[in-house]
């Protein structure tokens, strides 16, 4: 998980997305504990309030939950829920950029489709 301090994206959002990625990759398994606010804060040298804000987004979405006095845990079913969310964002996050770059390079729709097929065969 990496934070890009030069990015226009606020750090708390990057924290939330980093945790999502870690859940999707299995690094943070369902029903397991994630690092504490202090660990996020010290590791990335960010204010604890920033880390908390990122984590709270995922608590509100029902991806994480708090066990009193212990810490933050990944909810059962979080992986499925995140996959659904990412699928909904797939067009905006990947396809729009892909098409824009293809147009810049004067690649045809056919060219791009062929490349996607090649990508799937890999």
């Amino acid at each position, binding site marked *: 998980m990496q934070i890009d301090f030069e990015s*226009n994206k606020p750090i708390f959002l990057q924290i939330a997305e980093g945790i999502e990625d870690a859940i999707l990759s299995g690094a943070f398994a369902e029903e397991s504990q994630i690092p504490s606010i*202090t660990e996020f804060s010290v590791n990335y*040298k*960010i204010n604890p309030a*920033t880390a908390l804000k990122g984590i709270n987004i995922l608590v509100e979405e029902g991806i994480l939950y708090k066990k009193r006095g212990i810490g933050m845990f990944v909810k059962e079913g979080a992986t499925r829920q995140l996959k659904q969310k990412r699928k909904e964002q797939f067009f905006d996050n990947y396809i729009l950029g892909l098409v824009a770059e293809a147009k*810049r390079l004067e690649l045809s729709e056919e060219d791009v489709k062929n490349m996607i097929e090649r990508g799937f065969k890999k």
Partner: protein
Amino acid sequence: MTGIEIKNVSKNYGNVQALSNINLTFESDKIYGLLGRNGAGKSTLLNIITSRIFADSGEVLIDGIPAKDNDRALKKVYLMSEKNFYPGRMKIKEVFKWTRQFYPDFDEDYAYKLAERFELNTGKSVKSLSTGYNSIFKLIIALSVNTPYVLLDEPVLGLDANHRELFYKVLLEKYSQSPCTIVISTHLIEEVSNIIENIIIIKKGRIIKNETCESLLASGYSVAGTAAKVDAYIAGRNVLGVDNLGGLKQAYLLGKIDGELPEGIELGKLDLQKLFIQLTNQ
């Protein structure tokens, strides 16, 4: 705890106005960045809070208690500054012991642990320390005193990159475990921008910005691309500055992004250093 309240504080040195009618509150358990150029009044303000010097007018309240020459209020605040008040021949370990007399919550064990992490030899005398270790030694005390308010005036002076990194990590560790109000006075805005929650910019004795770091960062953005495209985009917008690299250009703008960015323009974050330079120029 109500924080440190600074009310209508002014201070003149001869006919130079060092601080002009400052009104400011440092709330409990937050990390503040106090930023300004050399001579802007940062140290004067911190020295007034701790009664090392006195304001010409106005007052400072610490948790509601007037701070001027009041031990009960001043015991709640620790100021780490460039000035050394320790006798040069005193050994570091003696300073640790002595600090307990003034600050009963000073955690000597923790101070020794930090000394080990920073590789500070506590058998050395104060005057034998290098500039960097002189800062480290005072930082260790500041991080171990456990007062509700800790003021750090230029804390990383003379520290190398490794020690700066370690200092910021230890500061956040300590703050997460036992929150207190921390004020970091510096002119290195980029270095502290992710650590502090609120930012106060002081210019020629006046406060010109006092807001959360997040809102300051959201007050602008940068764009990059070919010079022609960037020039077309920034025309008529509030430009902080530009960098040129061959036919490429990056521009820093104030304001919100209005509508879609044109093709070929890349978006980046506001450069705080550039904003700071522009705000604090004449």
